[in-house]
């Protein structure tokens, strides 16, 4: 009989076993990078060496980058955390009626495919420089992708499952919450993951074009000053932030969607 601590130990050893290839790859890449920069005398403006990136970025972090990073994270959070529940709610409502599904699906598809960057210049003129307004395009984009995926999850319930629910005499309410919703969770989480990517894309895009704060702005600003190590550092910070966001979604998924591999 496996005790809880044994299972835990197994999980840790599995994690360690799976971690070393990517770590090895990382080490190799950094070593290669440093090597190329050193031997070919690549100017730091073109491609800075990794150690330079780390040094410069940490130097400027507290004084300058932190405020940009916080501004970006704030908007991502507002846009994402409002878009996701709205999207799920909207999909839940629409899925109740076949007519509604047919009527609104094309509209949602259009909203998802709309390239957000196209409307940003006009939007900028409307709202001015208050950075909180940046959250609205993010909200709309996240909400649309979450709605699309969630709706697809609700619609694609196997007939078998519905028959089962009917066999047990489930009410409409029960049918939705106990059968349809759990079945749609994998697709819902797919929507959440895509939402992460879209929200970061939109926020950074907006920051590039308007305003004086945010990681997107920082990249542009420091590029202008030719402080390339910091630029690379910013890009990495954005990447790491996104990866953490993604990780949170993945962990939640593991907790709630316990039946897939």
């Amino acid at each position: 009989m496996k005790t809880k601590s044994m299972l835990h130990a197994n999980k840790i050893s599995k994690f360690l076993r799976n971690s070393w290839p990517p770590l090895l790859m990382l080490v190799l890449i950094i070593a290669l990078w440093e090597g190329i920069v050193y031997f070919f005398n690549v100017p730091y403006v073109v491609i800075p060496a990794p150690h330079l990136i780390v040094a410069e970025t940490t130097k400027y972090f507290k004084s300058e980058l932190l405020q940009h990073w916080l501004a970006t994270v704030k908007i991502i959070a507002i846009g994402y955390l409002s878009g996701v529940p709205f999207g799920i709610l909207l999909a839940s409502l629409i899925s109740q009626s076949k007519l509604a599904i047919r009527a609104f699906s094309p509209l949602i598809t259009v909203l998802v495919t709309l390239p957000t960057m196209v409307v940003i210049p006009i939007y900028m003129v409307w709202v001015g420089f208050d950075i909180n307004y940046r959250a609205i395009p993010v909200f709309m984009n996240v909400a649309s992708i979450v709605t699309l995926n969630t709706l697809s999850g609700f619609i694609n319930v196997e007939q078998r499952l519905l028959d089962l629910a009917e066999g047990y005499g489930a009410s409409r309410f029960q049918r939705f919450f106990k059968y349809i919703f759990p079945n749609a969770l994998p697709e819902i989480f797919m929507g959440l993951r895509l939402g992460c990517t879209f929200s970061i894309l939109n926020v950074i895009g907006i920051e590039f074009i308007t305003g004086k704060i945010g990681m997107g702005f920082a990249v542009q600003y420091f590029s202008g000053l030719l402080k390339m190590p910091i630029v690379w550092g910013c890009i990495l910070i954005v990447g790491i932030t996104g990866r953490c966001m993604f990780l949170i979604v993945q962990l939640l998924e593991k907790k709630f969607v316990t039946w897939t591999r």
Partner: protein
Amino acid sequence: MAEKNVTRRALGIMAPILVFVLVLGLFEFLVVTLEMPTWLISKPSDTFKTLVANFSDIWPNTLITIEEILIGYVIGVTTGIVLALIFTSNRFLDKAISPYVIFLIVTPQIIMVPLLMLWMGFGIKVKILAVALSSFPINMMSTMTGVRSVSADRYELMKSLRATKLQTFFKVLIPSALPNVFTGMRLATIFATTSAVGAELISGNIGVGPQIAYHTEFMMVDISFAYVYVMLFISVMFYMLINGIESLVLRGR
């Protein structure tokens, strides 16, 4: 009974069209009744008039953006698929690369545009590369997932027939992974269009993005809106195109 079915089907087709008409109508209504200034917003009727009138100017710029999107997309998607096939062929590579693919997906590739500009200047290559960089990670990830999900059953079938590695690759692996590849391609269209316009706005002087920025700045919002409608149309058509190709290739499954 037959009549009820006909009405139901007609309603099914009419419903979305009705929704679109209502949305545009509402838009028009609000602009008119709230007396929104024409330099801030353009109502649909005005936008369409402007679109028709200025088509000869709007179209060439749109064409440039379309060119960026298409070339960048094809490069990105092809690279994504090829790299995915390479990296999944070896267990070590697969494990080593996977975490970084997510990293690439999550980092918006338009953030690379200032770097690209430093290396390549202001030309169209920067935009194409930005589009390619945006399209490839999601495609790579989807393809990798597709390859990994080929069931052991199928490999056993090939083993029982003593099929060669090449036969297994072309006759089982690729057809099995195809649905996932198309999922990636569909999502990549969205990244491609947004990145194209984004890259143009950041680096640019040509294409739809700068045109929108320019006309908005000079209070000619109706032309900006015209561009928005055109881009919307193109994005949707692009998405539908990939969907259509998918239906064709995957028919009957």
